[in-house]
């Protein structure tokens, strides 16, 4: 690796190793799940579930449970509450998501306050919100890897019917697809994905990786497989490069204040989207000429 690209010590650092691996794994699953989130216009739910998962994580911290269990069960409970309030019409879905999100942020405020009373270590809020890839343990890595494989397989099985149900629910119903059951199953898959990514990356990056790469890919690909591949590749690239840039940025200023990973990854995702748009615009102009 040339020295100007990667500052010394990047690969010899075990925490960075684990961080990059987890980041890429989560980015891949998020980009795959997020493709359907974008197609089904469920971005708000996808984002809200990350915040709900955060409340679960903060609650788990309070009772001394495993944060991973807290994040995931929080997300699943939130998804259940959204479904219970009603999601038939788009506008109802908007309100249902909003009410659940509001209640969850209230709970987060309570849990974080109680945590701050009981412990002396500060930074809980920022850690929960923005996460830290560099604090992932190697046990967490294996759990994340296992859950990711299961999620990807479930989505691979329901992918086709889900796509059908998303594009034309009536036609899918007529062909015998259990539309509402597939939809609930997808919301669950999304909830677990988001819960997983919220714990390792924070709720900000969780949404960025869920929505950004699929939004770019949908402007590029034709067909499910091609779009999914583009989405996964863009997500993984942004996650890996983001960690490297964040690590490098430590050396950019004399003050040695590194840019947060979340900022670097989000910036790269927006850059990807801008490049894709530019490329499409260029292509359209050439076709017109």
């Amino acid at each position: 690796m040339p020295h100007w690209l990667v500052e010394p010590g990047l690969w010899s650092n075990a925490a960075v190793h684990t961080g990059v691996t987890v980041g890429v794994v989560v980015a891949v699953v998020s980009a795959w799940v997020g493709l359907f989130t974008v197609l089904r216009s469920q971005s708000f739910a996808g984002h809200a579930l990350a915040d709900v998962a955060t409340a679960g994580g903060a609650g788990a911290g309070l009772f001394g449970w495993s944060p991973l269990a807290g994040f995931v069960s929080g997300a699943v409970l939130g998804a259940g509450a959204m479904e219970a309030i009603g999601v038939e019409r788009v506008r109802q879905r908007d309100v249902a998501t909003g009410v659940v999100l509001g209640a969850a942020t209230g709970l987060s405020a309570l849990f974080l306050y109680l945590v701050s009373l009981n412990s002396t270590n500060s930074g809980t809020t920022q850690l929960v919100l923005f996460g830290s890839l560099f604090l992932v343990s190697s046990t967490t890595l294996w759990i994340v890897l296992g859950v990711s494989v299961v999620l990807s397989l479930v989505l691979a099985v329901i992918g086709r019917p889900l796509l059908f149900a998303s594009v034309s629910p009536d036609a899918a119903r007529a062909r015998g697809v259990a539309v509402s059951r597939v939809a609930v199953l997808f919301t669950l898959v999304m909830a677990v994905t988001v819960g997983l990514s919220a714990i390792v990356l924070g709720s900000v990056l969780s949404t960025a990786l869920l929505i950004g790469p699929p939004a770019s890919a949908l402007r590029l690909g034709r067909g499910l497989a091609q779009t999914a591949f583009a989405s996964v590749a863009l997500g993984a690239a942004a996650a890996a490069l983001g960690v490297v840039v964040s690590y490098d940025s430590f050396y950019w200023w004399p003050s040695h204040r590194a840019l947060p990973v979340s900022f670097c990854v989000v910036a790269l995702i927006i850059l990807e989207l801008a490049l894709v748009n530019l490329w499409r615009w260029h292509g359209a102009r050439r076709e017109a000429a």
Partner: protein
Amino acid sequence: MFSSFMTNAWLVGTVVALLAGATGFFVVMRGSSFAAHAVPNGAFAGAAGATLVGVTPLVGLISFSVLAALGIGASRRHRSDVATALALVSMLALGAAFLSLSAAYEPQVDALLFGEILGVSSSQLGPVVVIAALCLAALAAMYRPLVFQAAAPDLAAARGLNPTVLEMGFMLTLALGAALTVPVVGALLAFSLTVGPPAAARLLTRRPGVALAGSMGLSVLTLWAAIASAYQSDLPVGFFVGTYSALVYVAARATMRRHARRA
């Protein structure tokens, strides 16, 4: 509970709740909860940026929330939820970068996110009242066209109402309101008041005028109850705002269901 140091909290809280109830009525009607959640986060990034550069927080709050609102409003037509999500994460990521560069200490961040209503000073009171009055006036001016557009979009367009201009006007009001509420009740909780009570009010009545008044009334009651509970229990206000807002909505749903069964 009504001692002198609490006076500011009650006053500011009431003003913020009235504004949130009024804005929320339109937010729920237009189905733009996601934008209402994203814009205050823009304000959060702005406050963090202002700390870094060393200007008054209000400048950062207003400029960034307006930026977020315009970005979301401009792409309203196609896949608005994706644009909103991307605007939201960009703002939060920028906020994170500003914070880590300026090395602000954590209580400041917590205050921006969850608010510090009990710590409102008398000097903050004036600007809050002025900006709230401006926003309410703007909403009053847009009331008829916005309701018309929500009820019959095609007819409204045929009558010459420009949807983009309306959208921008509404988003700007939302942004100004967010810049005002973020330092008081926090980015995450300004949102709860904007969705729960207004959604409840809309369930309870079909007449838009009554729903608007009901939304503002429920929002004020929710916040009053939250402040009183926080004072009594010594727990954060945000917790009570969040749960009470959701409870108001659930109670409205339960009432509706009872009525429907009886009818």
